[in-house]
């Protein structure tokens, strides 16, 4: 991960490096030029020195010839030594072009010193004429030296002309180069800085965009940030947050859905209860009357009627009480039996109930008043229309983690459209004389109760009756139904 700080450091380092290298180059070049200028100046100075020393030699010689004292002689010797030194330093000026003249020049200096010595010698031997002749010659030679100095300087200028020009040209070029470098570096840095700032701001922008998306409530889009710095870390964290929020939202939606389903089921229950209540003007009054009727019938010896009345009372009580909480299959079967007793009284021989019940399965929990409406449906549609009566089979079997309840009749069968309506829980207008709870209602409550949709199968063939199979899980997926009921 390249941190933003490191990026900034890198940029600064690159800028520093470029600056430093340019500075070093310029300094190096300036130093070089300075050295060259020094060299050139040194050459001219050396030549000038020879000229001045030679004329001083002549001057000193003149003084000595006028007043030949030891002091003047020694001062002449000193000047001569200086001339000798200048001569030896002039050797360093030799190059291809001035070789000849330089040799001549040095020989001229030698000649000057020889002539000077000759003059001194003649003077010491008191040959004045010879001495002054030699002095005149020395003077001439000294003049020749200064002329040759000019010639040397001339050669020097010619030889070095191109060099001097190149120095000037180079300085000129350097100025241009400096401007170009400045421009190139300015724009290079601009470009680099632009890229660099992009590498920081682009992830930030991407992140901002993602945040805006989230703010608008779009949690589905994945957050992608092309970066490898701190922003990328932020983005990853942000992405994780988004995923979490998304999951939470999905969960909340699920919950809301369940909630609404519960609401619906509660409404359904209310409806059931309402219908029950509508059908029972005053249940207790009715129970009391039924009890009284039952006892009266019993006292009057109509035991069958008495039993029937008890069944009716029990059915009514169950209807009133058991709608709002889960019951066991055992209770349901009992109610079904009571119902069938009542119906048997009505249909006498025409109705036959065959039960085949696995007693182990009776403890399974289920919503109240589930079987009775189905049986009732079978009675109304399967038995009633048939003059010769029919048979209803109730079969409860254990199927591993499910309890299977099969209810079959041998009536005329059911219209497939109607089956479809029931399975899709559409409200079906109850037909006249039912207890009031429709088949659709039952299906709905079963599904809500177990939290699975695959709880019922209905198959029917023309003339073969209706075959209803309930598949009740032994364990419920959730008990939200209960809670919701409790609250309600």
């Amino acid at each position, binding site marked *: 991960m390249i941190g933003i700080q490191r990026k900034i450091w890198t940029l600064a380092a690159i800028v520093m490096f470029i600056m430093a290298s340019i500075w070093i180059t310029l300094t190096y070049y300036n130093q070089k030029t300075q050295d060259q200028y020094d060299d050139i100046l040194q050459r001219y100075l050396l030549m000038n020195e020879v000229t001045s020393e030679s004329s001083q030699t002549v001057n000193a010689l003149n003084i000595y010839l006028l007043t030949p004292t030891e002091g003047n002689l020694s001062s002449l010797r000193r000047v001569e030594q200086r001339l000798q030194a200048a001569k030896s330093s002039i050797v360093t000026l030799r190059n291809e072009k001035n070789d000849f003249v330089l040799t001549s020049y040095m020989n001229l200096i030698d000649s000057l010193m020889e002539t000077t010595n000759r003059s001194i010698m003649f003077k010491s031997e008191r040959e004045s004429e010879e001495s002054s002749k030699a002095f005149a010659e020395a003077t001439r030679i000294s003049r020749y030296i200064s002329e040759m100095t000019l010639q040397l300087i001339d050669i020097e200028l010619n030889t070095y002309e191109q060099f001097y020009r190149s120095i000037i040209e*180079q300085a000129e070029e350097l100025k241009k180069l400096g401007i170009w470098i400045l421009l190139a570096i300015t724009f290079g840095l601009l470009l680099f800085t632009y890229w660099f700032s992009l590498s920081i701001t682009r992830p930030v922008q991407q992140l901002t965009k993602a945040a805006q998306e989230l703010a608008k409530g779009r949690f589905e889009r994945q957050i992608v940030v092309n970066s490898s710095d701190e922003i990328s870390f932020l983005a990853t964290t942000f992405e994780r947050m988004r995923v979490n929020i998304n999951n939470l939202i999905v969960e909340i939606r699920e919950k809301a859905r369940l909630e609404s389903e519960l609401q619906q089921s509660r409404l359904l229950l209310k409806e059931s209860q309402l219908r029950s209540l509508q059908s029972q003007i005053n249940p207790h009054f009715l129970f009391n009357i039924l009890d009284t009727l039952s006892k009266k019938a019993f006292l009057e010896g109509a035991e069958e009627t008495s039993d029937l009345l008890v069944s009716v009372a029990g059915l009514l009580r169950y209807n009133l009480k058991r709608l709002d909480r889960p019951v066991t299959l055992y209770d349901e079967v009992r109610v079904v039996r009571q119902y069938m007793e009542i119906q048997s009284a009505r249909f006498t021989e025409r109705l036959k109930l065959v039960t085949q019940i696995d007693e182990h399965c009776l403890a399974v929990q289920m919503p109240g008043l589930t079987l009775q409406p189905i049986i009732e449906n079978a009675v109304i549609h399967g038995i009633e229309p048939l003059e010769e009566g029919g048979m209803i089979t109730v079969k409860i079997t254990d199927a591993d983690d499910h309890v299977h309840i099969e209810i079959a009749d041998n009536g005329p069968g059911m219209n497939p459209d109607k089956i479809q309506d029931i399975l899709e829980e559409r409200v079906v207008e109850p037909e006249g004389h039912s207890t009031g709870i429709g088949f659709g209602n039952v299906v709905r409550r079963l599904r809500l109760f177990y939290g699975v949709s695959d709880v019922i199968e209905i198959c029917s063939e023309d003339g073969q009756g209706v075959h209803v199979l309930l598949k009740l899980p032994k364990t419920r997926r959730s008990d939200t139904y209960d809670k919701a009921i409790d609250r309600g």
Partner: protein
Amino acid sequence: MHKTISLALGSICAVFLFFTMISAIRFVQSSWQPPQLQTTQDEEYRLVLVTKDLGTPFWNEVGEGAKAEAQKSGANLEIWGTYGEDREDFLKQLEIAIDSKVDGIIVQGMDQDAFDNLTKVKAAFYGIPIITVASDVPMSESMRKTYVGSDAWEAGKTIGQRLISDMGDQGQVVLMGDERKEYDQKQRISGIQSVLSQHPGIQIEYVTSSDEEEQISAATQNVMNVFPEVKAFISVDANLTPVMVQEIERRSQVEPYYIYSFDDNPNILALLRRGKIDGMIQQSPVEMGETGVKMMLSWLTGETVPLNAQGYMTQIRMLSPEDVQ
């Protein structure tokens, strides 16, 4: 957007980088190294050719010949001298050459005491060999090692013979010479006289002048006044010829006169080409230069010691106007 900006900045940057590169290359290329310094002196012989007629075609050719020869034999030759016969300066140059202790001096001879003094005393004192070239000064006076150049006597004789064959053996002939009467001029005159004196019908008038223009024209006028019958002019100093011809031309036609000259003045060839003069002695300056250097080197290396004191003669040729058309 980002791409456009990047592209724009990038291309600008690339353009500037390109110019920077060009400028940098130019900058590097513009550096010119100073000439290599030399730590040791050349072992070659240092020779100096001194003349007082620098820049004339004649001496240019002498110089070329000498240079070529020097280069061939590995000697270092410098040509010193003065323009337009500045004798003072010429002598100074000679003295500088001697004081500079060159290995050998090839010098245009000048028949003058100061010259002789330098060559005989000072050069001998420093042990510097001197060879005269083109103009000679006798060995007895100059202590020169040898002379390289045209045989002046022979040249005079050639002109004399040509005059006789052109003019016949009757007539007045004017010899125009420099009043300084240098050695080679004397030689030329004696060469001419050696031929003309055999013909009694020919009278010789010797006229001298300095090399100033008025002097020459005055002398020419004078001689033409004094000797109206003059038939031929021989200029023994080439430097006098142009003014002389001009003066004659001013008086009358030049055609009737037989005019002869030597070639060591740049204007002579043009005069010959225009037919103003009837003949010119052409010398071999290149050969003089070459031979001069050659002889000097052979003396310095000890190949030929002593050199021929009489001198080494170079070729001469008589040229007519027809030859140069």
